[in-house]
């Protein structure tokens, strides 16, 4: 994420420069999940903002856009994949958000509990994403 920000600021690609910071650390599940929580939050916010701005700027109403999508005759596999791609960041952020709220209540803060709740969140994410994409 820091690499992305610096790239936009015009500095040279810093992957090599960052690699000791990334390779030295022992990556753990809670660390990776925290990063994914933030990334999914940013992605979801971007999606909502794009939707809001599109509503203000694009011509035509929503139904005309849906008709346009229907006219593309996309295959069901592609549609299911797209639905899954849309819904999985939302589900991950929701379930992990509940995990964050339980931490804020002071529960589940021991290290083994962190890993257990993390695995539960990942499982719930996959199951709920598949379920919602199939609807």
């Amino acid at each position, binding site marked *: 994420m820091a690499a992305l920000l610096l790239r936009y600021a015009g500095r040279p690609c810093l992957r090599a420069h960052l690699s000791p910071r990334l390779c030295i650390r022992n990556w753990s599940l809670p660390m990776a999940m925290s990063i994914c929580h*933030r990334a999914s*939050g940013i992605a979801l916010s971007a999606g909502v*903002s794009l939707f*809001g701005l599109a509503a*203000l700027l694009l011509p035509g*109403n929503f139904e005309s856009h849906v008709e346009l999508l229907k006219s593309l005759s996309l295959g069901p596999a592609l549609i299911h994949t797209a*639905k899954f791609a849309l819904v999985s960041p939302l589900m991950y952020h929701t379930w992990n958000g*509940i995990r964050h709220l339980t931490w804020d*209540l002071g529960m589940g803060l021991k290290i083994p509990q962190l890993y257990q709740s993390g695995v539960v969140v990942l499982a719930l994410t996959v199951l709920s994403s598949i379920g919602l994409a199939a609807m």
Partner: protein
Amino acid sequence: MGWARSLSRGRGPELSGPELQPPPSSYCCLLLSPALLLGARVIRPAFVLGSLPDRPASGGRHIHLTASCCSDSKAASLHWTSERAVSVLLLGLLPAAYLCPGSMVDYSLAAVLTLHSHWGLGQVITDYVHEDKLVKGANASLLVLSALTFAGLCYFNYHDVGICRAVALLWRL
């Protein structure tokens, strides 16, 4: 996480301003407020800093509570609680949008979604934008973006099918 990072930067006692700014690190503020909205024992962020800041100040730094310190801490604490309350509200709105779609849920969703994402992105800015010159600009841009998003969502709810119906239509593809 954002609050902790800001605390360790060792800002001076002259810190004041918008309520989103974290309290100064050189003061000792232990918050023991009772739980409010969550109805259970809520762990408040405890800004307990008994040690002196990293950089030595001329004449030493006195650890004392000023009115500005306490009002900053109270504002930060209220902000923290409001963030959790909005998260819980949003959590409740998601099944509501499925079970009873309508314009009430549409407008509530527009407001709560925009506020949650605004505060979330505000924490991201606090964590990653360190230069004082850039912080104000970044927060201002975020405010513009959130305002436009909210306006767009309300416009969509009013002039178009509304958020709940839009998701239903999209899913029927």
